[in-house]
Each structure stands twice: as C-alpha cells, then as structure tokens.
C-alpha cells in the first residue's frame, strides 16, 4: 500500500529526511513516533508527493487523482475555512471520485462515514461551531468518505480528551482489521504501543527503529531519540511510560 525507498527531503540546504525506507501493508496500523522536528510530518507529505523529494514513494509516483483514490490524508492543522455543514464537509472527501459528491455511490459513502463516526445528530450543524473533538470526528469522516485503502493521519489524537483519543485509536484499529492500511503519527508512547500493530521511530530524519513496540520503545532507543529515560510500567492493558 505504501512503499518508501531511500526517501530524502532537503529544505533550505538542510536535510529533513534522509534515506527513509518504510512500508505499510494492508491490515497494519503503523505508529510513527519521534521527537518534534524529527521529520514525521515531512515524511507523510513526501510520501504523498506534496513536497519535492528524492528516492521513491509509490504514492508520489501516481497521477494525482489515482493517488487521491489510494490514500486519504488528515493533516495536522485540522483546518475548516468556511462555515459549511458537517454533511457538506464530509462530502468533500468525494472530490477525487467521478460524482464529485452527487452520485449515488457518493451518497452511500457519505452516509456510511457519518454513521460510522456517530455524526448523525450533527449532520446539518455548522462544522465550525462543533467542539474540537466533534470537528476531529467530522474530519476523520471526511477521510473515510474518500474510501481509500490507505489512511495517513498526522497527529490525529493531539488535543483530544482521553475518551476521544481512545475512540479514535479504536476506530483506526478496526479499520486496520477490515484490511485498510494506516500510518499515524502519535506522541503518546503508551497508546502507540497499545494500539499500533507496528511502530516506526524517527529521529533526525532517519528511521532509528522499525518493528514491535518492545524493540522500538526500548530504553536505549528512547534515550537516543528523545534524550530521555522513561520508567516503564506494564499493565494488563499495555505499557505506561513515565519520562523522568
């Protein structure tokens, strides 16, 4: 679904990404972790072909419309520029498809996304007047309406309350179980370890570790990537990390 080979990005003569190899397969929820400025957002943008890069990305190589039908992207900014209704916002996800929001297939996809995100009561409400968590759900529904096999989400749980964070990651988990591929950047190491099927640790534009949480979140890795030591508590629901 997503294959990156030797992906490098240089901005103002400064390397931001350096020879990244990474793949996301169907059924995987890949957690992209790493410190601020490690290049997580740039990696997502470069993979989608939104910034100039060298190396290979199977998505960036596609024609724009094909790419938009292969991968949906949730940027970090969560921008909603106009006071559109939740329904119209979600319908934007149909732009890459032939009906552009008006065909029967479009209606089915939009209704399914609304139902899945529990947005039926908000359907006609102005998206900008919803709470942050509700807006986030509407934006995820927009990405779902795009009906792509791959979902790329940049910090989708940042700024959400614990219940919304859990709901969001549970949804992603079930999407992966249905055969979607997902790559999600995330700062909460405990939640990442608990929900993601695989973790990729990025530091200084390079992949430091790629694999199971026990390998990627080892003490040595956290020290090298974040410059911290973290106490790790194993609980029946997954590990908890306490930076010290």
């Amino acid at each position, binding site marked *: 679904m997503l294959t990156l080979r030797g992906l490098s990005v240089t901005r103002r003569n400064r390397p931001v990404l350096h020879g990244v190899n990474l793949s996301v397969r169907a059924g995987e929820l890949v957690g992209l972790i790493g410190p601020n400025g490690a290049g997580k957002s740039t990696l997502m*943008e470069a993979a*989608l072909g*939104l910034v100039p890069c060298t190396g290979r990305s199977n998505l960036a190589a596609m024609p*724009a*419309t094909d*790419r*938009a039908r292969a*991968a*949906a*992207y*949730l*940027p970090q*900014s969560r*921008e*909603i*520029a*106009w*006071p*559109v*209704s939740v329904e*119209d*916002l979600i319908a*934007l*996800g149909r*732009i*890459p498809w032939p009906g*552009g929001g008006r065909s029967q297939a479009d209606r089915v996809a939009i209704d399914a996304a609304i139902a899945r995100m529990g947005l039926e009561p908000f359907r006609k409400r102005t998206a900008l*007047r919803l709470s942050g968590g509700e807006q986030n759900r509407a*934006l995820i529904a*927009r990405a779902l309406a*795009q009906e792509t096999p791959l979902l*790329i989400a940049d910090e989708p749980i940042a700024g959400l309350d614990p219940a919304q964070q859990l709901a969001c990651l549970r949804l992603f988990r079930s999407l992966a179980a249905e055969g979607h591929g997902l790559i999600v950047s995330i700062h909460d190491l405990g939640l990442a370890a608990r929900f993601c099927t695989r973790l990729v640790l990025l530091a200084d534009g390079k992949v430091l570790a790629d694999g199971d949480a026990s390998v990627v979140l080892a003490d040595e890795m956290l020290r090298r990537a974040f410059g911290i030591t973290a106490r790790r508590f194993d609980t029946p629901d997954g590990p908890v990390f306490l930076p010290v």
Partner: protein
Amino acid sequence: MRPVLIVLTVLAAALFAASLLTGPAGIGTVDGLRALILGGEGPMPIVMREIRLPRAILGLAVGAGLGLTGAAMQGYLRNPLAEPGLIGVSGMAALGAVIAIQTGLSATAALALPAAALLGAAIGVGLLVMLAGPRGGSITLILAGIAISALAGAGTALVLNLSPNPYAANEIVFWLMGSLADRSMLHLWLALPPMAVGAALIWTTGRALDALTLGEAAASAMGVSPSGLRWRLILGVALVVGPATAVAGAIGFVGLVVPHMLRPWVRARPGALLPASALGGAALLLAADIAVRLILPERDLKLGVLTALVGAPLFLHLIWKTRSGGRM
C-alpha cells in the same frame, strides 16, 4: 438548478430589462423593445441599440465578472475580506487609463483609453507573475498584489499631480470613479472576449476551491494541483478584472460584498458560490447603474461612488452580524 440560482437569474434578467428601459429619452416599454428588436427609422433604434444595449450588457458583464472573481479570490485565499482588486491588476489598468487621459492619447481614438488600460493590466499581471512566481503561496500573492496596487496608486497620484490643467485632472478623477455611461459596442467587443476567457478559467476552479476548505495540504492530497490552481486563478481574475476596469473604471465593493451576502445561501461552499456570486454581482451592478440614472439624472452620479456608498454600510452590517451571530 438550485432555487437561489433561479431567483438570482430572474432578478438579473429583470434588472437587465429595466436597465434597457431606463434613461433620459423617455421611451415607452413597448416602443423601446420594438425599436431594440426590429430596428427601423428614427432616433429610437439608435438610442436602444447603441446607447442602452451596450450599457446594459456591460453592466451585466462587469457586475458578473466582479462577483465571480470576488468569490474566487475569497475561496482561494480562504478569507472573506479578499476582493478582485487585491492582485493589483485593476489598479494597473486604472493607471494605464489615467496616463492615456493625461497624454491626450484618449482623445485620438475611441478605444485608445481602454486599450491603454488593458496594457496597464497586462503589465500588472507580468509584475504579479514575476513577484509571486510559479511556486509562491497565497501569502506571496497577497503581498505582491498589495505592492503592485501601491505602485499603481502612486503612479496615478503622480499623473494627477503633474496634470497640465484642472480639466485633465477633473477628467481623470471622474474616470476613476467608474461609470457605464456612453460606452459603445466597440467597448463591448474589446472587453467581452478576454472577460469570457477569464470567467471560463475561473469556472474550472470550483472543485479545487471546495477542496481548499480543508487547507492547502489536504486539498493537494485530494488531487488539487496548487500551482495549476494558482495559474488559473491569477490569469482568470486578471482577464476579467483588467478589461472590466478598462471599460468601466474602478468599481469597488461589488466583488467584496456580493460573495459575502450570498455565502449563507449556498451553504458556504466556495464552488457553489461562484455562479451565485456572478449572478448576484450582475444584479447589483445593474441595479446600481439604474439608480445613478434615476437619483440624480442631471448631475451624472458615478457608478463607483454609488457602489461604495451602498457597499460600505452593507459591509459594516455584515461585519456586525458576523460578530453578533458568529456567521461568516
């Protein structure tokens, strides 16, 4: 067709007809329409076909152009304060016209003034492309537009400053206020083809503008080419606004107020706002052009003055409503 578009179409058509039937010659409805369609002898067909028809068509086209480009600029910049004059092309067109008046060039041929204004607009587009470049973002475009507008404003002030006599200065000032009076079919033939091309270019941006609701990155990921959109938008706005300013002078507020007024009626979708705003702009400008003929027929009230007089309070009202109601 959406109800709001039907209402606006009927409104614009009615105002177009009313514009044809308004004027000092005092021609009756039936006589006027007969003279317009069938022609015949005497002054009536000349008044209808060569004075009122070009004026009404220009009102329709310039108003539609300003409404359309205003909606496109607001959608592209994701800012309800954007307007077509922002890219500086109308300012440069005005400078070209003012220079033509100052040098006496405008007196040599009927189309010398609009042609000079078009040249000014073309130079403005050239400057804009040089400054905002193929890679620049929307902020670069705004900054370049402001710089060009400032340059054009300074040039216009300089020409006024150096004008040889009060009559030339007077003529310049009156031209700058904008008007549709005494325009001929020649003006139409000069302005309409580029405006049609520009409008067609902007027409293609609807979906991309919709996608931009989610921001530039999300829109690009949905298949919108940022550079392609920027080119279509800059060229489209310039091709509409340059010729419109060249034949009608500077007419403010239509491109700002009309998209603002109509936004709630198209559920705030930028793509759907394009046709609505074009029709609304046409209706507003036709109405204003009828009003200048009815309010002070003997004093030649200028169209741009009236649109500003009506537009500014309307805009204040909208801002007030936005603040109190939270609706943009």
